[in-house]
């Protein structure tokens, strides 16, 4: 079978970006008075790496690019990669180099396509989850395998960036800023996402509740209650990104991102990214597939197929290569979304809030902007609130990183968020477990 993950770098399209709240000339550049004209924002994800380059004088985005994180050969989730890195220093250096080289490749590729020349870059800002940042900077990564450190601050500042300057073709005076994570299990990608969605903005009305869910291999959730930012992460599992799914693939050209019922019960219509020949299911396609089969009664609420559908699963599409949905695919999604449901419940519980107190529900990450809200609600992937309250973002982490890059204060912008944040560790919490099991069913999210 073809490897749907062997995908080259692809340019980010306008649709891939989250509109920035702040645009216009970059005060960062004005403040510096001089310095190199360009900057780069990097979202170093567990599965994907996204990079955009900016003209700091005009505050305009020059280009953007997205590719797979090559560290995936050492495991699709962060624990596998951390374990691999802890086996030997040699291995850890290799894993670090993979991410570093990928960033370098992307910068050079962007330069060759007429975006910022690497020598013109004056500043690079990098956000990511704590594991990705610590593996890149080769600092404190071994602490992340010890649960005592999950809620503590983890220093991910590299000792020396000269090697990156050389490898990435940067001028000596270019700044490379790794935006520090909040703690062991909450990265700076979450902070960037909260910034990009303006989650903590003071609202006109009294109800302040705003929820942010960043779906990914490592999903992060934040709840703003008007004064405090409650944050946690849930091992959502790679299913949201199509990984580990029989016909799964990342949201790129050839991926089915939307499925709608056709004329007859077993007939479906597919929307494919890039309008190309369909190759597999990305996260939002998987959600639609499961929701459609549930509605048709082909799939039961507990994740079992109706009698008569065997081990080979259900063919959503028959062609040169069938697009099938197997029991194990449904099972992966059930466990992934149950962790989110339980996480949302626990944050609401900590904040003393109810679902009805939420004014906004901001969805970012793996599903992009194509998630079918009704379908997502019906299987309990996202909270069951009025669709008017749900806002779909694409990659909010990159957008937040871009804001930091062009904002005058840079990383200081995050200081208020850091001081209002309260990390909630859900592992081993029996309330979380109860809610996890309750949320395994394919039904609206159980948050009471």
């Amino acid at each position, binding site marked *: 079978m073809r490897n749907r993950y062997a995908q080259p770098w692809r340019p980010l399209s306008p649709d891939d970006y989250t509109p920035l709240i702040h645009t216009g000339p970059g005060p960062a550049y004005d403040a510096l008075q001089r310095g190199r004209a360009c900057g780069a924002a990097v979202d170093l994800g567990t599965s994907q790496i996204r990079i955009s380059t900016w003209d700091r004088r005009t505050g305009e985005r020059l280009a953007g690019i997205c590719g797979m994180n090559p560290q995936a050969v050492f495991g699709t989730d962060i624990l596998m990669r951390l*374990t691999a890195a802890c086996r030997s220093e040699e291995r850890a250096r290799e894993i670090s180099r993979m991410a570093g080289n990928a960033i370098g490749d992307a910068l050079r590729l962007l330069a060759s396509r007429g975006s910022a020349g690497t020598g013109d870059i004056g500043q690079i800002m990098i956000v990511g989850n704590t594991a990705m940042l610590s593996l890149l900077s080769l600092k404190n990564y071994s602490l992340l395998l010890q649960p005592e450190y999950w809620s503590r601050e983890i220093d991910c500042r590299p000792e020396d960036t000269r090697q990156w300057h050389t490898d990435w073709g940067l001028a000596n005076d270019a700044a490379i800023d790794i935006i520090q994570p909040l703690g062991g299990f909450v990265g700076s990608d979450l902070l960037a996402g909260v910034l990009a969605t303006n989650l903590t903005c003071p609202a006109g009305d009294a109800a302040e509740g705003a929820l942010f869910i960043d779906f990914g291999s490592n999903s992060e959730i934040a709840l703003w209650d008007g004064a405090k930012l409650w944050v946690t992460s849930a091992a959502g599992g790679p299913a949201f990104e199509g990984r580990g799914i029989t016909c799964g693939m990342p949201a790129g050209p050839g991926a089915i991102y939307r499925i709608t019922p056709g004329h007859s019960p077993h007939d479906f219509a597919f929307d494919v990214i890039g309008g190309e020949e369909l190759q597999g299911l990305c996260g939002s396609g998987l959600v639609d597939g499961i929701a459609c089969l549930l509605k048709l009664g082909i799939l*039961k609420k507990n994740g079992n197929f109706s009698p008569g559908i065997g081990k080979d699963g259900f063919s959503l599409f028959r062609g040169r290569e069938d697009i099938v949905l197997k029991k*194990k695919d449904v*099972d992966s999604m*059930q466990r992934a979304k149950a962790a989110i449901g339980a996480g949302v419940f626990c944050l609401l519980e900590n904040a003393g809030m109810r679902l009805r107190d939420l004014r906004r529900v901001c969805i970012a990450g793996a599903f992009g902007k194509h998630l079918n809200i009704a379908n997502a609600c019906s299987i309990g992937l996202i909270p069951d609130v009025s669709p008017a309250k749900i806002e779909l973002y694409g990659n909010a982490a990159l957008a937040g990183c871009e804001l930091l890059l062009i904002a005058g204060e840079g990383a200081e912008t995050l200081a208020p968020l850091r001081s209002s944040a309260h990390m909630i560790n859900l592992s*081993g919490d029996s309330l979380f*477990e109860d809610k*996890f099991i309750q949320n*395994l069913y394919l039904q609206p999210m159980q948050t009471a």
Partner: protein
Amino acid sequence: MDPLQSIMKAYNEALFDTDRDGALKVVHEAVAAGVTPEDIVFKVVLPAMESMIKSISEDFDANLAQHFMTAQIATEVTEEMIPKFRAVPSVAGRVVIGTAQGDMHSLGKRIVIGCLKARMIEVTDLGVNVSPERFVDEAVACNAGVIAISAMMVHTARGENGCLRVRQLLKERGLDTRIKIVVGGAPYHFAHDLYKVVQADAWAEDGVTAGRVIEDLIRRVR
């Protein structure tokens, strides 16, 4: 049909559909009709759990969600029935259980605890991320014959602060003939001899097996 058989059939059907309310309804009706709580646990709940695990064992990873959901139903029923037993059940043995140091995956342990309780084994749950010292200290304090260590990651299964260290402490304190170690979790599924490498006395692949394996170990330490 034997009334107990029809109860089993109805309970099994509800369990297969992971229908919690349906399963509880079957049980409540049976108790109202005079079936003893003992029979519910030993002749309905335990056999149903066994046949469910058997039916999914071929394709275990495809049925994890269902496994969690059905185990939850079995635990709920068992916990409701045990206080209703006519005689105070005799304790088959005592076990301390927890996840290895560094390991926060507690759902497998949860299923095992449910199965052990249904077998009248007294369980002390030490929670997650349990240090080797604590495993041994608590086993001594509870007068437990078995230490059960769950590890869902290779590094917590094989690591120096997991089972290996518990074994070392038992030896140092002269306890290793009195207290046995059983391990479980994903890494042991992939390497069936791993339990020997980490110096455990046995491993169990699921909750039902864990019940049997632990009963056997308890007999050996008596």
